[in-house]
């Protein structure tokens, strides 16, 4: 699935950035933020990251996946709460048409390099 191409993008991105950091021995950690509505399976992404990192500076990197949750706001009772799907209804009054924000994040927050 697309987790493989996302994993390759993540590895490429970190490789590209790390070349700007001077004498890098290896990358030991990468922090990736994944929203719960980003359409990404975390297990599958983790698996693909390991495969994509093979024979690169990231080979031994620990990939930290930080899940973030989308927030919903109820159009009728104004409650706000975490939502797990685009079909969320208000968990307080049951109203539909919840306004959803966030949860679509898919980004590399930071990485740790080991310098010689």
């Amino acid at each position, binding site marked *: 699935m697309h987790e493989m191409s996302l994993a390759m993008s993540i590895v490429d991105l970190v490789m590209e950035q790390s070349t700007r950091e001077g004498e890098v021995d290896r990358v030991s950690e990468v922090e990736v933020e994944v929203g719960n509505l980003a359409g990404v399976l975390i297990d599958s992404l983790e698996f693909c990251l390991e495969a994509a990192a093979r024979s690169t500076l990231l080979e031994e990197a620990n990939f930290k996946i930080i899940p973030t949750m989308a927030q919903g706001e109820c159009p009728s009772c104004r409650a706000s709460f975490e939502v797990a799907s685009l*079909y969320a209804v208000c968990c307080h009054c049951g109203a539909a048409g919840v306004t959803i924000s966030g949860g679509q994040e898919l980004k590399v927050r*930071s990485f740790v390099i080991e310098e010689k």
Partner: protein
Amino acid sequence: MCDSCDCGSHGESVIISKPGADHKHSPTHSRTVQLEIDVLAKNNEIAARNRAFFASKGILALNLVSSPGSGKTTILERTIGDLKGQIPLAVIEGDQQTLRDAERIEATGIEVVQVNTGTGCHLDGEMIHRAMHQLTLEQDSILFIENVGNLVCPALFDLGEAAKVVTISVTEGEDKPQKYPHMFRAATLCLINKIDLLPHLDFDVAACRGFARQVNPELEFIEVSATSGEGMGQWYDWLRTRCI
């Protein structure tokens, strides 16, 4: 993520960290580099360049998505047959393997490029950029991009299109929008295809529209049959109003 419970925020408990400071035996020195870069940033950048190119030539680029077999290529064949000579048209065909769909389009007499993605399950901005170089794209034309039959990742990868057109056929479940909400949210138009088969099925068109509108209140619908031609006129009107 977790075998024993469904709780959505469980992820945090499975993070196994190895902070750099613990590398006592390592002869290296760790340093954290802050990045905050969207993983799709590179694709989005290329897509934005494609979009600017299309805009500069008045080209209407449409990203056609659906599950495998909903009728994208058949819709294109009929559309080309009916609009050829009125509006300049070109097609980019995305499939994992084979030239079959491109050959079907080629037979209609318009220019087509096939992109084979191999094991990849979607087209991306760079593939479209490369395919564009193989086409003589005319001023004020329509470029149809038939994506790989898949409702999951094509929703994530911007190609630079003006709009995504999602096709669902009445031989599929009317709950497709609930199963693939991201795509129905990202689409501008939904073609409900194979309506010639409705008398033989119990597909609930109203329910299907309702499910899709829940995630995308603005979504437009046109019911068509690519084989009988029913409803296709409305689709052509939609294309014409978008063209100018």
